[in-house]
Each structure stands twice: as C-alpha cells, then as structure tokens.
C-alpha cells in the first residue's frame, strides 16, 4: 500500500515536471520559430500559406456584419456631401477634358520622337485583380492577404490600388498572395522626388506615414512634393505614383501614400517582368 502510494506520488511529480517542461519548451519553440522566420524557412512559409488559405474565407464571413455597418456609415456620410462633391466633380471633369486634349497631342509627339530615337519600350505588364481577404494594420506588421485564385503571381510583384503603389507580393501559396504594404517595417522602395529628381528609399516603420531615407543632406524636398518609384534595383518599375511629402524635419521626411491603405477592397497585382534583385535572389 505504501509502495503504491509512493509510486503514485512519483508519477504525479513526473506529471508536474512534464507540464513545466512543456511550457519551457513551448517558449523555446516560439523563439526558434522567430529565428526560423527571420531566415525565411520554407516550411514556415508553406504552413503560413496553408493557414491563410483556411483562415481567409472564415475571416471574410466573420467581418461581414462589421463591413456592412462601416459601408452603411460611409454611404450616409457621403450622401450628406453629395451636392458639394457633384460640383467638385464637374470642375474636375472640365479640367480633365482640357488635359485629355493635351495628352492626345503629347502622345502623338511622344510616339514620333520614340520612333525617331529607335526607343525600345518596356514589355507590357500583366496584371491580376485580387480581392482583399485579410489585413493586418497593427503595431507589429502591415500586410494583407489577397485572393488571386490559380493565377500566376510572382514574389516581388508590384501591388497597386487605383491611385498608387500599395506594396509588393511577399509570397503566394495556394490561392492567396501575401502582400507586404509599403508602411510595413520590412518594406523598402527605391523612390525619387518627381520635381527635383532627388533619389531616396521609402522605408516603412509600421506607422501610416513611411519615412523617406537615404536622401542627400541638402536635397530640395518640400511638403507636397510627389514621390514616385525610381526603378533602381529593378524590383519596381520607374514612375509609379507612391505618395506625397507631408513633413520635412531635420531627422526625418514623412510621406503619405496616395493609396488609401485603410480602404482597400480590390488591388491590382502587376508583374512587369523587368527582372531585378528579387529574381537574382530567387536564383
């Protein structure tokens, strides 16, 4: 009887030890997973893709009520301003008509000059329109998953909204493409100030306003200047609209993206097929 009791106590002690060990090993596992993630482990990428495939439709259903409320609110607020918007749109339309005439004549001139210089145009871009399924705009990452189905999407492909660059494709597994937004801390986009042609790198910092870094010390950069992609490094083609400068300080220059990252529903994933650092890295 005494022996059995002692055995029971030993077993109980062992069970407590195993439980404690499990906790410690899980903590260690979480740290190991972070290290593996830093080194872009293919197993983690695959499992993350599988989980995204499973989670995205569930999330889409779960957020449906919130989406409806938010859309109804937006509809009502837009309804209030409809008269002013209408007037604004009329003015814009008049201006666009004038610009259209100018654009047509410039297009003809451009074609003539290109022929004269024997200019080789860039290959035509292929694109996929994708619906946003999940998004992560928090303190620790800025990303989203977009449904692309069985369409081919390359790592590093440019992701655009109707008015500017949104980010780049990080990976595509299954039917979803994981997109790293340009506000994410791991995002680096070579850009140029459109007016002064000053080059720099747009660096995300997990805030809504990414920073413009690696610019010359006395560069001519002003609030309101448009920022476009520079095409350096070959990941992004040159000339895509990115954002505009909102603040020029001694320590940092802040840029507001043209694309409303908080209101994305559909995005365009464009494969320019220009080759570059990502292709080299993949090889």
């Amino acid at each position, binding site marked *: 009887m005494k022996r059995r009791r002692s055995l029971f106590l030993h077993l109980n002690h062992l069970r407590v030890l195993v*439980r404690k060990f*499990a*906790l410690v090993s*899980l*903590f260690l*596992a*979480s*740290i*190991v*997973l*972070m290290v*593996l*993630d*830093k080194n872009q482990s293919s197993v*983690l990428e695959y*499992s*993350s893709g*599988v*989980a*995204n495939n499973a*989670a995205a439709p*569930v*999330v*889409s259903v*779960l*957020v449906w009520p*919130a*989406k409806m409320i*938010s*859309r109804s609110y*937006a509809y009502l607020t837009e309804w209030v301003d409809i008269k002013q918007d209408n007037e604004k749109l009329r003015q814009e339309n008049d201006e666009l008509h004038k610009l259209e005439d100018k654009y047509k004549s410039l297009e003809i001139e451009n074609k003539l000059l290109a022929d004269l210089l024997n200019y080789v145009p860039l290959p035509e871009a292929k694109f996929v329109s994708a619906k*946003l*399924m*999940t*998004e*992560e*705009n*928090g*303190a*620790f*990452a*800025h*990303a*989203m998953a977009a449904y692309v189905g069985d369409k081919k999407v390359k790592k590093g492909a440019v992701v655009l909204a109707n008015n500017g660059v949104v980010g780049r494709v*990080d990976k595509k597994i299954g039917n979803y493409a*994981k997109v*790293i937004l340009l506000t*994410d*801390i*791991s995002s680096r986009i070579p850009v140029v100030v459109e007016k002064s042609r000053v080059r720099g790198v747009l660096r995300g*910092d*997990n*805030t*809504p306003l990414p920073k413009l870094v690696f610019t010359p010390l006395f560069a001519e950069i002003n609030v309101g200047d448009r920022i476009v992609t520079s095409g350096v490094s070959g990941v992004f083609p040159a000339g895509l609209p990115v954002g505009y400068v909102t603040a020029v300080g001694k320590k940092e220059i802040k840029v507001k993206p043209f694309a409303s*990252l*908080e*209101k*994305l*529903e559909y995005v365009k994933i464009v494969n320019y097929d220009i080759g570059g650092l990502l292709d080299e890295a993949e090889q």
Partner: protein
Amino acid sequence: MIEEDWQDNAVSLFQRLLPVGTAVILVLLAYGPVYIDLFNNIRPDLGMIAIYFWMLQRPDLFDLKSVTILGIIDGAVSASAFGLGLFSYLLMYVLMMHLRKYLNGRSFVVIWYGFMALSLGVMIVKWLAASIYHGEFLPILPAMFSYLIGAAIYPVTAMLLAALQNWFLQDDDEL
C-alpha cells in the same frame, strides 16, 4: 438510447471546444478588413482578451494546448514574426497561472484592472521581442494605442464571452 448518447457526446464536445473556438474566432476577427480609418494602425489584440477571460473563468477548458493552438494560428495568419504571437500568448498564460488566484471572485472592475496591468506587461515584452527581431525599436505609439483600445473594449468582449458561458456552459459539471 444510442441517439441520446450521441447527443450528449456532441453537446459535451461543443462545450469543451467553446472557449478555444471563441478564442480562435476573436484572433481571426482581428485580421478582418473593417475599412475604418481609426483601425488603420490600431488593432486590439482580441486573442489576449480571450485568453485572460477563459483562463480566469474556465481554466479547466482552456489549457496550455489551447494557448498553443491560438498562438500558432495567430503566427500563421499574421505577417509579423512567426512565433511572436505564440510567445506573447504563452506569457499571458504564465502570468495568469500565477495570478489567477488573486483575481478569482473579485469584482468586475478589479478583473478589468487586472487585464489592463497584465496585457500592458505582455504588450511591452512583445514590443521588445519584435524590436529585437527587426533589429531596431518599433514605434511604441501604435502598440500603446492598440493596448488602450484592447483595454477599452475588454468589458464588451468579456460581456459577450460571459453571455456565451452562461448560455452554454452552465450544465457541464461532468466535463
């Protein structure tokens, strides 16, 4: 008779899975697009609320396995470092393991303050871990605002979870 057994088993399984199921739903909800400017950079950690609530109310139905599942799901869906979510959830689990006894049976306000204190600690450690991962300090303000929003919506979320608990987990003494 067999049909009754099957029904009992199904009900029992549902009751066992309810805490972890609701926690998974809350974790996934945090990744839903909501098209509201305010949430562009500030998302509350709903999974943390679920862990705190269930570990306080039903620790028998919410154990280390549940926390691990939750952490892995969060890590897989999130674009931040895989393992960061698991790390923070495990931290909350350890804190709750040791501090649960001081919070049990206290008034709602004390429990709320408890959540505010513990989630603040976990958020700071998570922020430090993320900063180490990226090799630079992440901006602290978005993390702080996420924490504040999480603390502010704790009562509503806890109320919903408590309602679920009252509806479905009242007659589960045999679990």
